Structure formats: C-alpha cells, structure tokens
C-alpha cells in the first residue's frame, strides 16, 4: 500500500518534478564539496567583488571567491542542517504528541495545553527565542529551528493519533490489555503514519527556508562556514554591484524549499481522498437553452397556464459522456391548481422543479422546447431578465429548512430582502411586511421572531417561515420541493395544512414534489408520477384507484409503511431505480416490472388511459387495486 502510494505520487507531474529536483540536490550535496570544495574557498585578491564573467559565472565575493561554486558547494550544508533540524522537530514533536496518550489525565492535559500555547506563536518567534538560548551559530540554529517546529508537529501527531484511537482494532487491543506505551507504538503511530510522513516532508522545506532566514540574519551559520542563507546575506550588501551574488543562493533556497513542499503535497494528494473532478460540460446550459428554443414549438400554446414545460432535459457531463437525470419531461400547471410530482429519489423530480425555476446547478445543461411561466417564455432570456420575471411570480420552498436559511442573517431580514429587491421598498416597510407574513404562517410573536436567527427557530417554524418568505410577493406559483421530508410527522401535517391554507387564500398554484404518494394525494388535485427522468403517469387524484402504470401501483402499495426510508428501494418493488448513466433501453421500469415482456424493450409514450389520465406503459393495468393499498390515499381531509 505505502509503496504504491509513493510510486503513484512520483508519477504525478508535480511529484515527479519535485522528486527529480530533490534527487539532483542530493547528488550535488554529496558530490559538490568533493569536487569544488577547495576551489570555492580559494580567495583571489586580484578579483575582488567582480561581476559576472566567463571565468566567474556569477562573479566573485568580497574576497574574490567564485560565487557559483560556493552556491553549489553550500548545497550539502544547507540541506544537511535543514534535515537535521527537521529530524529534531519530528522527534520532539512525536514525543510531545504521544505523551498525552501515555500519560495520566493531568499530565496529558498539561502537555496538550503547553503545545497549544506554543502553537499560538509563529515559529520564527520561537526560533529566535531558542536561538538566544542555544547561542548564535549553526548548532544553535539547528536546535532552535528543531524546537520551534516541534509544537506544530506535536499537535499534528495528537490529532492523528486521536483519530486512529477511536477505531475498532485499537479498542480491541485495549480490551486485550495491551499497555499504553505499546498501544501507542504498535497500534496508533503506525496507522497515523501517512499524514505524518507527508507533513515531515513539508516541514523539511519549511526548515530549509527558516534556516536560510536565520543564516541571512547572521544568527545561523557563521563564517568561515557558509550556507545559502549566509551567501544570500553577503550578496545582498553588494546587490547593486552584482545582483547574481544574492539572487543565485536565493533561487537555490526557493527551489529546494519548493521541492520538499510540493513533494509533500503530491504525496498528500495520493494518500488523501482522490476526488474525481468533473470535467467541464462541453455545452453551456445557456447555449443549449438558446439553441433548443429555435426548435419548432409543436404543441399548441397553453397561454393561460401558470407553468408550461415541454420536453425538459437536464444533463450533466460525466466521465463517459452525458447523462440525463431529467430526460424529456412535459408538464402543465393551471392557475390555482395543485399538482404533485411523485417518484423515488433519483427519479429526477427535484431536478425538474429546480430546472423549471431556472435554479439548476451551475454545471447542469438544461434544455426544453418550451418553458413558459405565466405565459412568458423563459427560453432565450438572460439571468437578469429571468430574475425580474420570476422574482415576484414564483416562490420556492425547499426540503431542508435547517440549511435553506442563511445562518448568519436574521429571519426577518431574509424575508424583507425579497420585497426590498423586487419592489424597492424601504427597509422598514419590507420588515413590517415580513412580520405580517410571519404572523400569517402562524409564527408566534412574529415581531420578536423576525429579529432572531434561523437556529433559534424549530424545524417546523423554519419551514413555515420559508413559506412566509414565498408570500412576500404575490406568487402565481409555489414550487415546494419535499417541504415536509425533513420534519417529523406532526409538524409535517401542520406544514401541509399551512400550504393548503395559503393556496386557498392566495389562489396561487402549487407544484408539490414528494417521494410520498400519501402526502401528494392529500394535497393535490392532479398527480404526475416520474420514474428515471420521465413522466410515466399523469392522473387526477380521484383516479388513483384506477392507476394504470405498474410503477404507480407499486408506489401506492408502499404507502402503508409510513417509515419507509426514501433512500432505500421500495419494499414492495424489488431492485432500485437505475442510475441515469445505465438506464435500460425502452421502458426504464422493465427490470423491476412484473408485467414486462419483449415489447417493453421499446420506449412507451404517454397515452390516454382513462379520463384525464395518461400512462406510459405497454400493458396498462385495469384491474382494481386491493383496498389495503389504498389506505390513507385519495381522501382529501
């Protein structure tokens, strides 16, 4: 495992570059002093402080020594000292980091507090402090940088050990009576090892830079010895005469430091969770919406509908081409009507709702042949126009009221914002309307509540406030996406009742998205059943007992079990909905359908299956549904 990690870290471009740079430096560190050591120390009174020349590539220093050679030779000392300091930091850090796990309660508290305090100070300050104690010079600087780096490494060890300490095998070892010290050395450290190795590598880079800093200040390496930092400091005095004298060692330090840091990061990336990055979709959603609007509008316009969508598709660019979680959905909502979209998770119902409201994620490509809201087409319109059109006419209610409010803004202000933005009202006007709407959605003492933050609300209250937010203007359509899923049962009922009251009072149409056909059938007049990105059945609620599509029937069959987890496949239907990427050709439900035959290998279209009822199935059901399955469904209370 480990070896593999290293190997693949070295294969990444960054890893390979940094590793080969380090290899070159290592060779130089070994070889350079042997070949050029003496030449680099050779003073030449005839060539003091010269600029660059053929003989001296980077010029000479104040004593006439060749700077290029000195930079090369200094590799060994610079790297060596840095590595020495790093190993001190790692060793001391390991001890400090492991101590809390080994010591008793008091001792461990003390060590942790000391480490925390030390970490609060920048490493350079610690290094200066220790440099005073250990004295000026290479030895003192090694100790100083080592000790200065120790606290942060200790902290790292502590967190990593603590992370491993919770795992099962450690508990098992503990139960087996393994001693604390042995536990740490045999079980904890080896398993916390990878991040520590990564950080030690990065730390070597930091130590190298820090050492250069100390030597540059004159606190580190003392003459006649020299490292890069020392050369840099000496060169800086004469930067006007010979810039190379300070730039060359500077470049060496930066390159070496970067090599360590980047190698560490390359390893970290391999060891860490490899996040598969999505590639850019090749077609931007706007572009697609625009181009598809050019397509002929086949169906007759439904001008007075609140929402009229034809052939809506929402695609994402995946690893192997495009997938369409929403694949050709058409739906119409009439003024004042309540329509429910129902389906399992993954059916594309929520994405449909978002896309219709032009709120699909940034990387989604949305297209449709028609997308009319309130008789106005949204196709071909820029964001600003859409905001203007939908700002006061479409309200959204989202699933999780916990996360759907801005946690750092007062609830009242979040409601008032709508009015201020779209109607240009004053802050005070808008806020008093917000209080009024909060009252309307039955928030007790709305005046006070408006000044509170979302976390001070209960879940149900938050969802009611969210509905109140939708009422800040006079919406013609309220889209509620799983508005009750995150709430417990009694609160669910309150919220649904509120939605119904709101609808009755305002005459707004409601598009209710839910996985729960019982909820939908209580609320709605018309139900749209979605499966695998398509509409499979569309029917009035009073015809549920005559549902024609096997999937609708299966959903009905799952109703009595109120505790059904929507993330799990339906109990009554074996299997789960297919991923958008591997939908079977033809009817997507076929693998789970008891009535499937060869015919189902071709895609069924929505066809009339009864009065105002359409189903996409080759074998629509007509026999009566057993009454058990209908319990709780169909009666609007």
């Amino acid at each position, binding site marked *: 495992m480990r070896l593999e990690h290293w190997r693949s870290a070295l294969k990444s471009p960054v890893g390979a570059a940094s590793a080969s740079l380090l290899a070159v430096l290592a060779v130089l560190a070994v070889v350079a002093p042997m070949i050029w050591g003496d030449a680099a120390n050779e003073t030449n009174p005839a060539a003091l402080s010269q600029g660059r020349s053929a003989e001296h590539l980077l010029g000479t220093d104040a004593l006439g020594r060749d700077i290029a050679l000195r930079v090369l030779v200094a590799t060994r000392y610079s790297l060596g000292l840095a590595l020495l300091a790093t190993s001190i930091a790692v060793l001391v850090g390991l001890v400090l980091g492991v101590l809390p796990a080994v010591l008793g309660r008091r001792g461990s508290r003390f060590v942790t507090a000391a480490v925390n305090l030390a970490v609060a100070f920048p490493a350079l300050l610690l290094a200066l402090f220790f440099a005073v104690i250990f004295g000026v010079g290479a030895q003192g600087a090694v100790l100083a940088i080592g000790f200065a780096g120790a606290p942060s490494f200790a902290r790292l060890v502590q967190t990593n050990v603590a992370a491993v300490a919770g795992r099962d095998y450690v508990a098992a070892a503990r139960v087996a009576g393994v001693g604390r010290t042995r536990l740490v050395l045999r079980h904890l450290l080896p398993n916390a090892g990878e991040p520590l190795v990564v950080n030690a590598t990065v730390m070597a880079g930091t130590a190298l830079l820090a050492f250069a800093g100390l030597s540059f200040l004159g606190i580190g390496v003392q003459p006649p010895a020299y490292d890069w930092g020392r050369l840099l400091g000496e060169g800086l005095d004469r930067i006007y005469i010979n810039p190379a004298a300070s730039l060359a060692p500077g470049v060496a330090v930066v390159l070496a430091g*970067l090599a360590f840091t980047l190698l560490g990061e390359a390893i970290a990336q391999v060891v860490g969770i490899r996040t598969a990055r999505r590639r850019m979709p090749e077609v931007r959603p706007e572009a697609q919406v625009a181009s598809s609007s050019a397509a002929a509008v086949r169906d007759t316009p439904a001008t007075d509908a609140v929402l009229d969508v034809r052939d809506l598709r929402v695609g994402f660019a995946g690893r192997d081409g495009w997938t369409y979680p929403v694949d050709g959905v058409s739906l119409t909502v009439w003024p004042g009507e309540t329509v429910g979209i129902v389906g399992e998770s993954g059916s594309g119902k929520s994405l449909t709702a978002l896309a219709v409201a032009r709120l699909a994620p940034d990387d989604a490509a949305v297209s449709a042949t028609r997308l009319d809201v309130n008789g106005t087409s949204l196709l071909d319109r820029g964001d600003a126009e859409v905001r203007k059109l939908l700002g006061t006419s479409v309200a959204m209610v989202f699933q999780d009221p916990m*996360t759907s409010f801005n946690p750092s803004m007062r609830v009242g202000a979040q409601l008032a914002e709508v009015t201020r933005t779209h109607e240009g009202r004053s802050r005070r006007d808008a806020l008093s309307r917000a209080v009024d709407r909060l009252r309307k959605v039955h928030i007790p003492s709305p005046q006070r509540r408006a000044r509170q933050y979302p976390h001070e609300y209960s879940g149900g209250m938050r969802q009611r406030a969210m509905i109140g937010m939708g009422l800040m203007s006079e919406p013609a359509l309220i889209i509620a996406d799983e508005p009750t899923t995150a709430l417990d049962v009694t609160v669910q009922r309150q919220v649904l009742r509120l939605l119904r009251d709101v609808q009755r009072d305002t005459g707004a149409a409601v598009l209710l998205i839910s996985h729960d056909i019982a909820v939908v059938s209580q609320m709605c007049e018309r139900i749209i059943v979605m499966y695998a990105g398509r509409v499979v059945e569309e029917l009035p609620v009073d015809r549920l007992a005559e549902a024609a599509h096997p999937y609708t029937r299966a959903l009905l069959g799952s109703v009595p079990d109120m505790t059904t987890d929507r993330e799990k496949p339906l109990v009554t239907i074996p299997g789960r909905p297919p991923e958008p990427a591997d939908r079977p050709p033809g009817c997507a439900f076929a693998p789970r359908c008891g009535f499937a035959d060869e015919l189902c290998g071709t895609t069924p279209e929505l066809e009339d299956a009864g009065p105002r009822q359409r189903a996409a199935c080759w074998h629509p059901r007509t026999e009566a549904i057993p009454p058990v399955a209908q319990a709780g469904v169909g009666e609007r209370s």
Partner: protein
Amino acid sequence: MTTTSAPAGTAPPVRSVPPDRWVRNPWLSFLGRRLVRLLVSLAVLVTLAFLMIHLIPGDPVRAALGLNAPADLVEARRESLGLNDPIAVQYVNYLRGMFSGDLGVSMTSGVPVADTIGARLPATAGLAVSAFVVVMSVSIPLGLFMAVLTRGGRRRGAELGFTSTSAVVSAIPEFMLGVGLVFVFGVTLGWLPVAGRGGASSYILPVLALSMGPALLMARIVRVEALSVLGQDFVRTARAKRLPPRRVYLRHAFPNALTSTLTIGGLLLSGMIVGTVLVENVFAWPGMGMTIVQSILAKDYPLVQGIVLVYGSAVLLVNLVVDVMLAVVDPRSTIREG
C-alpha cells in the same frame, strides 16, 4: 450581535431568571474565559522571557563581555543586573519592574529597554499593519472573484493558473521576495527606494514583500471557502429569491465564508508581525526586527527579552481579537464551546 451592550435585556428568557443573571450571560462568560486565557498565556510568556537569560548555558555576562573581560568587571555587571540574587527574588524584581514599565537596561548601550522599544515599535507596527491591510483588501475580493469565476468546475485553466501561482508565491519566504523586489524595482528599474524608512514610497517594497505571500494564500482560502458556501442550500434559496448576483455573493455567500477567513487571517497577521524581523533586515528598516537581531548578535539579553515580550504579546492580542470576532460572526459555535 449587539447583545454585549445590553446583556440583561436581550438574553432569551427561556430559563427562570437566576439572581446572578449577568454571570450567566454567554457573552460575558465567554469574554471572561478568553481574558483568563490571555492572562495565563501572558504569564507564561513573561516567565519564559525571564527564564531565557537563565536557560543560557554558562555565564551570559561572561559570554556578552567576551572571554578576556576582567573578572571584576563581569562581577560588577552581574551585580548590576541582579544576577547574583536568588532566582525568586530576581523574578519578583523583574515582575515589579515590568508593571512600572521598566524592562531593564541594555547591556551594550545603557539605554533603558523600554525607551529603545518605544522608539522602534512605530516603524514595525506601521509595516505590519500596512501589510495586513494590503493582504485583506487584496485577498478577499480576489478570492471571491476567483470563486465566482471557477464555480461549478468552470474555467479550469484559470483555476489551475491561480492555485499554482498562489501556491508557489506563498511558499517563497518574505525575505526572498524582498530580495527579488529589491533586484527588480531597486536595482534594475531604479524606481523605488530599497533601504531605510522615509516617505510613503519607502513603504512600498517592504510592504509588498511582507504581504504578497499571505495575500495569495488567503485568497486561495477565501476561494475554497466561498466555493463550498456557494454550493449550500441557503445560497440556492437566495437565488430562488431572485436576488441580484452581487447580493447573493456579498450578503449571503461571503459572510458565511468569514469564519475560516478570520481564523486564517489571524494566523497570517501574527505570522506577519514576526515576519517583519526578516523584512526589516532586508530593507534596513529601523524597527524592532533590526534591533532584536543586533542584540542577539551582541548578546544584549535585556533588550532581547524586552522585544520578545513585545512580539509575543502582540501575537496573543491578535489571537484574542480574532477569537472575539469569530464569536461575533458565528455566535452559536464559538461562545458555547468556549
């Protein structure tokens, strides 16, 4: 957020009111805990500064005066520094002196340490504060801009360019950047002064050297934070309210990315305070950083002690301010957890 000013009135009247109600106010007890923590840290800092001179192996006075110094001179100096007293007495004297603003006397110049610090502090503070202002005013807009530009995996090229540039630049230590800046703007172009503290133009290069790395690092963090906030539900809500993008980003997304921005900002600021030591030495900037290095080399321990104390206290103060600001931004998590 303004609850501190009216502790009794705004506390949610959930529990029955205890008689010692002001003690229960989460804000006050939070501030109390933080102050206690600051005092403890300061005490540790002072003690360490005091101990520094005693932790040095051998006789610090002999080391400072040189091996050839006559024995009676060393002895007299030890006496005048009080090093011959019992350590407890020395400690008490040290503390007493400190409370009256007396940090001792420089061993090389005989000038009171407090006077030297008083003379040098403004230069250092000016440098650190200007650099911090630059960092904040560059990194936050830049990070937000990059986040908006690269959201949802857009513009991979820009993202890659930004992250790799910022990674490389922020990995170069400030004094190296300083040398590079001196070379480019001082030596090659001759545009800007490269040494000493004079008019506004003398600030440009040191401030740049000090702020470039932190600014880019910070911008990276702001970008990542903002990106994760942009993906959250309440941003979708804000979009669903059809707010103009400016408002979505500035009013809804950014404030919620502040927490880690602040945390990192505090770390960067304390790093920059100490980073001035190196930058001052590149640009011959007459601040505390030049002084502390000179006094370390001259083994002028009282002066070193004094300056270490000032740097340390500045860092602790920054930490306190950041903690309080975090609590203001995100009262829930910070105050409770203490």
